């Protein structure tokens, strides 16, 4: 028998997006203010965990159909590739590039390859956290 957690599920739906956008915010803000890929990833994972608590693993899996192990791999590849990119340009491993651009909507914005690396970190953290929680949760 399953209890009808209407309030929890309803709240979770809203709060999920709040947490998720907060996570995205601290991810992007990381270069200038506290935050970054690691915390961002953890907070994103916690948002998904909230969904899992409110519903169940299978439902969440159908809503967000991601194999988190692949996510880990993709994250590692992005991080590694970003670091290795500079080698093609004849610079040492892990040289970052940044500059300021005038983008159509956002205006004058700095674009930094470190953000790509951070994206890798973000994906790995989300992937690993979710892999751990999901495998332990599914275990009988």
């Amino acid at each position, binding site marked *: 028998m399953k209890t009808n957690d209407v309030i929890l599920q309803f709240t979770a739906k809203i709060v999920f997006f709040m947490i998720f956008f907060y996570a995205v915010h601290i991810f992007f803000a990381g270069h200038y203010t506290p935050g970054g890929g690691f915390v961002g990833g953890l907070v994103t994972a916690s948002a998904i965990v909230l969904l899992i608590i409110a519903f169940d693993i299978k439902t969440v899996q159908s809503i967000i159909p991601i194999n988190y192990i692949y996510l880990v791999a993709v994250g590692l590849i992005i991080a590694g590739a970003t670091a290795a990119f500079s080698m093609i340009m004849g610079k040492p491993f*892990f040289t970052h590039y940044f500059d300021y651009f005038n983008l159509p909507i956002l205006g004058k914005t*700095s674009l930094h390859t470190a953000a790509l*690396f951070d994206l890798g970190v973000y994906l790995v953290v989300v992937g690993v956290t979710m892999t751990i929680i999901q*495998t*332990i949760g599914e275990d009988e």
Partner: protein
Amino acid sequence: MFQVLCIFIPILAALFMPFFYKKVRSIHTGWFVLIVPLFLVTFYATFVPLISKGETEIAQLDWIPSLGISFVSYLDGLSLLFSLLISGIGALVVLYSIYYLDRTVEQLHNFYIYLLMFMSAMLGVVQSDNMITLYLFWELTSISSFLLIGYWFNRDKSRFGALKSTLITVGGGMMMLGGFVLLSIMGETFSIRELIEQAPQLATNDTFVIALILILLGAFTKSAQFPFYIWLPDAMEAPTPVSAYLHSATMVKAGIYLVARFTPIFALSEVWVWLVAGIGLLTLFWGSFFAVKQTDLKGILAFSTVSQLGLIMSLLGVSAIAYHVNGAQDTVFKYAAFAAIFHLINHATFKGSLFMIAGIVDHETGTRDIRKLGGLMGLMPISFTVALIGSFSMAGLPPFNGFLSKEMFLTAMLSVAQFDLFNFTTWGVLFPIIAWVASVFTFIYSFYFVFRTFTGKIKLEELPKKPHEAPMGMLISPVILASLVVAIFFIPNLIADTFVKPAVVAIQPFLYTNPEQVDIHVAAWHGGITPELLMTIGIIILGAILFMTLAKWQKVYEAFPAKLTLNNLYDFIVYEFSDKWMNRFSKLYMTGSIRGYLTYMFTGIAIIVIGTLFIKDGFKVSFIGASPIRLSQVLLILVLVIGTVTTVFAKSRITSIIALGAVGYTVSLFFVMFNAPDLALTQLVIETISVALFLLAFYHLPKFQKVEERTRFRFGRAFVSIAVGVMVTLVALSAHSQKYIESIAQYYKDTVYTLAGGGNIVNVILVDYRGFDTLFEITVLAIAGMAIYGMIKLRMSRKEKNYENK
């Protein structure tokens, strides 16, 4: 160049022996092998005229030139003599083995590969001038001897003997390597010739005596000297050709060779004279005394070999005395080295033939037990004749070569009593007495060997096989050796001029520079009643009486307690001490309990760190640069301490988990207080997740063990914990109080915007300045995730588990 390659000819030929064995089944593989020693003996014989004039031949093949290591073939009187012995007796032994080992039953390719390997190794030992390659070949003789002793590897005793000989000889070899290294450090060269040139300077070194003792250990273990002789009797499990070749004529003489070769370097030392002469004499007596106790034919011969090697060794020791005597050329000490080399040749001839006869008796009657044998004289006349010649020569009777060398031996020993250095005036008197007594026993066991086997009543019913004379082929080699025994008696000076004198020059370069200067004339009759002759007559009379009454006094040997033998000591060391005791000792500390190992580690770390702080006077407390303490910090620390204490002393696990969580959150508050927002954020989230995981683990604890119990207080553990805590505190305080290098943080502050285009220093360090760390930290995370996934998902079914356990 070819001269160096000759050392390797046997081992290269060994490569082809399996081919001959497998493809040419109709011909005994030994015939192919025989070519090798025959070629070598001819090759080395061509050097004889040159070397006997006192010249030397040297050839070199670089191996590791940058380290000064090369294969050198240095032929002087000593090494040429040994090379001829090795290849000559090698040829005879191969010929003998062709008839001894059955082509259809035995694994001949194995046998001949080992034998050829040994031949190369032995040639290398005696010709190497470079100490490192000498050691290389030395160990190769140990290895090939191991393989040959264990040739019948399905017998327990063979494996036991092989292991024993290897442990002892390789152990000694290691010591010798140490001695070589010390010598090479002192003389800054690996070349023995160059070391001999600077011998007087070497003797002033502090480590000279250590090198001397280490090298002697190598020589004594190899040459079966007291107390290392115990491997030789057990090595008699080898096939008889092997015993005849390795354990009488060649390998056991490697130690003799080494002592002879190093005499010019070490002769200046009193320790050398005493050790070589003393141990040699002790071995001589010990071996001859216990040879009479043996009942196995090869056992008698093994002990007799031990004893004869002791004789040669003691002579070499006495030959070193010549260095200390003024005008030694006019004294009797000059005889010693000559006698040693002469006896070495004689021993190789008669002992080789005796071993072959023992093999023939074993082969034709099926037993080597002297108690079952007897009366074979009529059935095996040729073997008897050879055995008689060999034994009489061993006993030192005329007209055989043993007589000549025994006379010279007694002369040398008598001379020791007149030597007045190094306390020889007090103890030197013992030398001729012990030598004489040992000679009496030598006489007894020689007679015991030949007459118990060949005369008396034949006991046909006790013999496993019906005895008959051996085939001609098997008799060729012992007959050749026996005729040499007789021939040398009649033409001793020919042998002396060609072989012995050049070798004496190599041993005593401080006396002679040319073989012609060695003015020793061997003669059977000295033209008068000399003390030596009287001693020989005494030996014969007393020996004959004791041999007649052997049955009465042989019980003496039973009086010796079996527990106090050296074999027992070996068994104790190898099986009792190394095996049982050491295992027990290991089990004392390798308990398998992780708690125990952690205790070792923590205790060790605490002792090392606190000890270092104490010894180096590194402890210091200074509050310069410390910030003022605020009330909020005090409160937070209080919470932290309470949380920690609760974690340790809580009765329930869940309390501990919650308390641990409290500690974690307090730490994140500290991060907030010390201006580390990134850390605070991460710490909060991570603490939450880990507490959740702890709770998960707690929930799944097995029910039946779930007894809620307070952690028991153990004084030892509390002490170790406190020690570790004190250690960390002391180190932290001292490290904080003594800052020698400026922090590099200022650089980050200055360049975070201009160079890295960021504002959050922590994040910029993580992804930019030191992104490498981060890359691998996320890899660590990924691995942890995979590991958890693997542990939970990939469980083996019971069936697979059983499969794995198999």
